[in-house]
């Protein structure tokens, strides 16, 4: 079966030592080890991550917010996976961190919303919190939570789709 993603489906059997050889990782996704891509990603990712965090943190005062910033920050992991291979990046990532990002993100939003009820306000009434500029900080906290959810889900979807469906295991309905 020849892959489509690299655009050079005929070369997958070329022998080992050429620098642009196509290697296959455990998910059978063709991976081109390209110096140009790896170097570009190495240079560009810190700036993309900074931009993502800026859009997330500064969404209250300029264009952007949690959804956009989270998408940009999540793209960093996707770029790394495309440059250095999905398998190594998957091994490098800690599954608990991704799950934690998603859970903490949703949890933050829900906690902020319910917390104001506990303090005697309405649902999601930021001004119920006894802190100065409660509304501003509440909105920024919520945006950070959204960013964490979006970044985690984008990373998770990428690796889930890369891993795909394990056809070998028996379906539950068959047993």
């Amino acid at each position: 079966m020849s892959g489509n993603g690299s655009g050079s489906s005929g070369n997958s059997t070329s022998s080992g030592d050429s620098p642009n050889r196509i290697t296959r990782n455990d998910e059978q996704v063709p991976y081109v080890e390209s110096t140009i891509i790896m170097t570009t990603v190495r240079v560009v990712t810190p700036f993309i991550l900074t931009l993502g965090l800026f859009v997330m943190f500064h969404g209250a005062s300029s264009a952007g917010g949690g959804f956009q910033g989270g998408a940009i920050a999540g793209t960093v992991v996707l770029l790394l996976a495309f440059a250095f291979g999905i398998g190594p990046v998957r091994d490098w990532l800690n599954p608990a961190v991704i799950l934690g990002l998603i859970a903490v993100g949703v949890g933050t939003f829900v906690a902020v919303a319910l917390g104001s009820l506990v303090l005697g306000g309405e649902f999601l009434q930021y001004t119920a919190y006894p802190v100065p500029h409660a509304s501003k900080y509440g909105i920024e906290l919520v945006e950070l939570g959204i960013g964490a959810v979006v970044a985690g889900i984008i990373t998770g979807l990428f690796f889930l789709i890369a891993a795909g469906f394990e056809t070998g295991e028996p379906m539950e309905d068959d047993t």
Partner: protein
Amino acid sequence: MTFTPLEAVTLVFVLGCALTAALLRDVLAAIIASAAYSLGIAILWIVLQAPDVALTEAAVGAGVMTLLLLLTIAKTVRPENENEFERPNLRSLVVVVAFAGVLLATVPALPAIGAADSPVAGGEVTQYYLENAYEETEVSNAVTAVLAAYRGFDTLGEAVVVFTAGVAVLLVLRREVFV
């Protein structure tokens, strides 16, 4: 209806990319064309003064969607010796053209971009947001003020939808962790 050169060029570029993506038979080429289409649309959003939407379109439409689609077709086989372009079915072509015609017929009824008397800008709710958003929410981006404060309940729902999407994919693919 007049266009600035930037608007005209971007519009032609977007239309060209959309047609290319629809007509090309090679899936890889079609995905690249649709990524270019998303980027063009993002530029149009900026021209139309909607930077929040433009950021989302560029990051999700052009970036993440392209990567996910590439990842998906990497698992498929690329057929050889085919026509380069799809031959559109005449009946579907008529339906598509008629539908586009109906949509385009409504365009002249829209208010001019930035018109002061457009229903959206003159509405009571919009005026309330514009006049009170800064004092009440203390953030200077009115879009964020509406999203996270006035419509915070909706946004909580959106965040939960994103969360649910992840859980649904985990369930469908029968996995317990994302990586």
